[in-house]
């Protein structure tokens, strides 16, 4: 077993993210980090958490969820509410944040359990519509709360935590998310989850407790979406339910699909790229041109999915993919080297 090789590779994403965080922290400590960049970093961290957690359900468990924003909504509202209530007695402290995270995560996890239950009975498209419905239900409920409870249509006012360095906390949570989900995937439980994706009937016949793993997948995915929601509530002064509509769920799904299903690193890169592009393009494309961005995303999404999945393109894909190309190059190099040797 190539244990050593595997080790560096499997920790690479932690190392890179931690290094980047430290780099930006040094920048901001020396006063060289623009506030807008700090905000962008917060947004990226939240998107990474959402994408990685959704990837667990869609990419690894193989169930389509169109309600991921719903779990985030639960986390944002309940975590945000707890934070707003605790700011008085505890102050806007680290402790307040931790309690908000715990409450938001647990509540989202409970919702994940509730959505996991139909997932045991429903297949594919039916489950997709159920998750979509769940997201809309959650949003509608928060939208119609009274001003004293969750703010209703005006939104819930939430505290902001130490403006400047909040992105560091966000990235620490990204590392936690990665740690938990990646470790789960790279274990016997992860193998079981992937086995269910590949062939549920065979998984059952092989003694895999499908019920348990489906619920585990949904709950874990929801918990981290909830945590992302709590962070989101901290980055805004006001949480409004309109944000968490089904388009938001789709946006996260698009990130996961573009990153490549079943690839956590793909999800991370794709989340960073899309958040960055969103920001940059929003500055360049103003007014009616803003829609060009959506147009291009839609086109890219369609082209990539067709390219990656069309049965007719199978031969083409096998011939011209990244792996085959690198394999070819290394082979050529090896051949050239051996030729040189012979000549020498």
């Amino acid at each position: 077993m190539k244990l050593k090789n595997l080790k560096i590779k499997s920790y690479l994403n932690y190392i890179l993210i931690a290094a980047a965080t430290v780099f930006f922290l040094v920048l901001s400590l020396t006063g060289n980090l623009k506030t807008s960049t700090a905000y962008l970093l917060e947004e990226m961290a939240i998107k990474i958490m959402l994408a990685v957690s959704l990837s667990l359900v869609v990419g690894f468990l193989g169930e389509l969820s169109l309600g991921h924003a719903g779990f985030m909504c639960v986390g944002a509202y309940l975590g945000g509410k707890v934070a707003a209530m605790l700011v008085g007695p505890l102050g806007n402290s680290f402790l307040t944040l931790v309690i908000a995270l715990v409450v938001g995560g647990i509540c989202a996890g409970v919702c994940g359990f509730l959505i996991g239950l139909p997932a045991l009975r429903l297949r594919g498209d039916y489950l997709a519509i159920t998750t979509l419905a769940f997201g809309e239900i959650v949003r509608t409920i928060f939208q119609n709360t009274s001003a004293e409870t969750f703010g209703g249509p005006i939104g819930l006012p939430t505290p902001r935590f130490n403006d400047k360095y909040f992105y560091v906390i966000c990235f620490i949570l990204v590392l936690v998310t990665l740690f938990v989900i990646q470790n789960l995937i790279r274990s016997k439980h992860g193998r079981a989850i992937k086995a269910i994706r590949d062939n549920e009937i065979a998984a059952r016949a092989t003694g895999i407790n499908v019920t348990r793993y489906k619920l585990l997948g949904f709950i874990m995915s929801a918990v981290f979406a909830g945590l992302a929601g709590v962070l989101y509530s901290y980055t805004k002064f006001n949480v409004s339910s309109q944000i968490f509509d089904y388009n938001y769920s789709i946006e996260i799904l698009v990130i996961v699909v573009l990153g490549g299903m079943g690839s956590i690193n793909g999800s991370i890169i794709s989340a960073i790229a899309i958040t960055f592009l969103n920001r940059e393009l929003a500055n360049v494309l103003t007014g009616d041109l803003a829609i060009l961005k959506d147009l291009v995303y839609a086109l890219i999404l369609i082209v990539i999915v067709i390219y990656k999945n069309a049965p007719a393109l199978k031969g083409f894909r096998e011939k011209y993919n990244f792996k085959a190309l690198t394999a070819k190059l290394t082979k050529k190099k090896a051949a050239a080297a051996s030729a040189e040797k012979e000549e020498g």
Partner: protein
Amino acid sequence: MEFLTTFVNGLSLGGIYAMIALGYTMVYGIAKMLNFAHGDIIMVGGYTISLFLGANPIVAILASMIFCMLLGVVVEKVAYKPLRGASPLAVLITAIGVSYLLQSIAQMLFGSAPKFIVIADLGILKIGELAIGYSTIITLACSVVVMVALSLFVKFSKTGRAMVAVSEDKGAAQLMGINVNRIIMITFAIGSALAALASVFFLLKAPTMSPTFGSLPGIKAFTAAVIGGIGSIPGAMIGGLLLGVIECFAQAVPAISPYTDAIEFSILIILLLVKPSGLLGKMRREKV
């Protein structure tokens, strides 16, 4: 009286949902895919009507239906056909992409602000205390006609029976000499034409159109199709009418009216838990 008005309004709204749901359910039955972009065809239909309104409204409606038919066929050929035989997830995500594409194209052409599109002002019918818009009555009548016509078409025409055959077993249908690609194309054409027709009735109810208009009715109609049992034509009709009536009654009660959408979706989830294949859907068991 109020009860009756609400009920008729509900049936009329349900008729529109049923019309859209038919598109979903036929495509699902025949191409085994969820056409997420179906709702956006409604929006395209609405805008197309506005382009032709200078002429006769009937001409505008026909032009819109023809354009949507073509659009539906083109979308199927370009985006869905290459993925036939691929995983359902891939097809669904492509459909979501198409939905976004249509919305952003519409926004580029017509702007994001809602646009007023008045096809006709039909007035209100008053019988004693009962007051019902003529548009409601026309909607109801048309949807009944459409549903009956479609049922007859599927049952008795050669093409219709070929559709049933394809939805039962694509491979066997092909071996029996049915041109499956042609049948799928026709299904998309019919579904899209019905979506365009639905936009007419939405515009008669409230004369505004925006690029994202199709999303919610699309999702609602899809919900209706699932409640009725996706793949089943009578199921889509029953599901649509049921959902329309529920929506109108929920909106008529002030205490619960803000939660209308939540109520409709909750009914969906509960129903699916009790009866995972919908009211009239067939349970397909994977063969071991």
